[in-house]
């Protein structure tokens, strides 16, 4: 097991600071150099020349949500796979590859069965909702 110093995370912090600096610097420049003559029509949201009706923030079709929910689960599953998969090789080198393989396969099988269920039931389809009646 390798020992490291916390200093290895310095570049991350430096890059964040640098990027924030770049963005703020860009704004600073544009504050000085850009014209400021905003009019009422200039600041309306673009809607092909019409005045916008109502707020944009409103309901969307439910399929966006279902995709989101499936994503959360798959994201977590793939994240859990990372440490296991990264020691797979050393397990294999130690001659315990069979154990690791079986465990990984069981894990993936359960994951895949969930995916197969969603597929079978049509949750992965995007256009199916035309056929469905929206519940009042």
């Amino acid at each position, binding site marked *: *097991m*390798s*020992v*490291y*110093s*916390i*200093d290895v*995370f*310095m570049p991350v*912090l430096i890059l964040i600071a640098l990027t924030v600096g770049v963005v703020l610097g860009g704004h600073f420049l544009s504050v000085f150099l850009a014209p400021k003559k905003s009019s009422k029509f200039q600041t309306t949201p673009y809607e092909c020349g019409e005045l916008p009706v109502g*707020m944009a*923030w*409103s*309901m*969307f079709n*439910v399929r*966006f*949500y*279902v995709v*989101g*929910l*499936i*994503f*959360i*689960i798959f*994201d*977590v*599953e793939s*994240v*859990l796979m*990372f*440490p*296991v*998969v*990264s*020691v797979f090789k*050393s*397990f294999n080198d130690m001659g315990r590859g069979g*154990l*690791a393989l079986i*465990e990984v396969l*069981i*894990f993936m099988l*359960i*994951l895949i*069965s*969930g995916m197969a*269920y*969603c597929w079978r*039931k049509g*949750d992965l389809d995007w256009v199916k*909702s035309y*056929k*469905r*009646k*929206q*519940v009042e």
Partner: protein
Amino acid sequence: MFLTVLFFLSATLTIASGIMVVVVRNLMHSCMALLGCFIGVAGLYVTLGANFIAAVQFMVYVGGVIILMLFAIMLTGNKPEEKVGSFLLPAMGNRRTLTWGLITALVFFLSVGKILLGMFGIGLGKKTAPTDPSLFESTVDEIGTLLLTDHVLAFEMSSVLLLGALIGAAIIARPETSKEK
């Protein structure tokens, strides 16, 4: 040195955005404050030498917060919660919930504070932290090994849990099909 800087930055970010989550009325802004809070906690994990957990935190919660925001804006239309009474903190709901929230918080604060004070009393001198606090051991391989050996049951069970959550979420969220036969 860098450890201290990172710790204070992360702690400030965590607590400040945690307070924002409570105080802000706009749900979108609450979600963003929550994201800041999670990133701060990820920074704290880094100062604890748990960089894998920090990255997991980042990855899972950034995705999760996108979904939360999606729901927040779509289901509320971004209307701020209605203001009841005149409180310092506008998001605090009505008088009754605020009271209960504060009482619970107070009780919890006192009990945990008591425990913490007790811990200071016995002293945390027995800790096994390494001599140089800015040196850490890489934990990824060890986590992987433990997941495949000691904690294999938890590992497999978590996949069952996620399967249940996936199917449950899909079933609950699915729009009802028209009963045509």
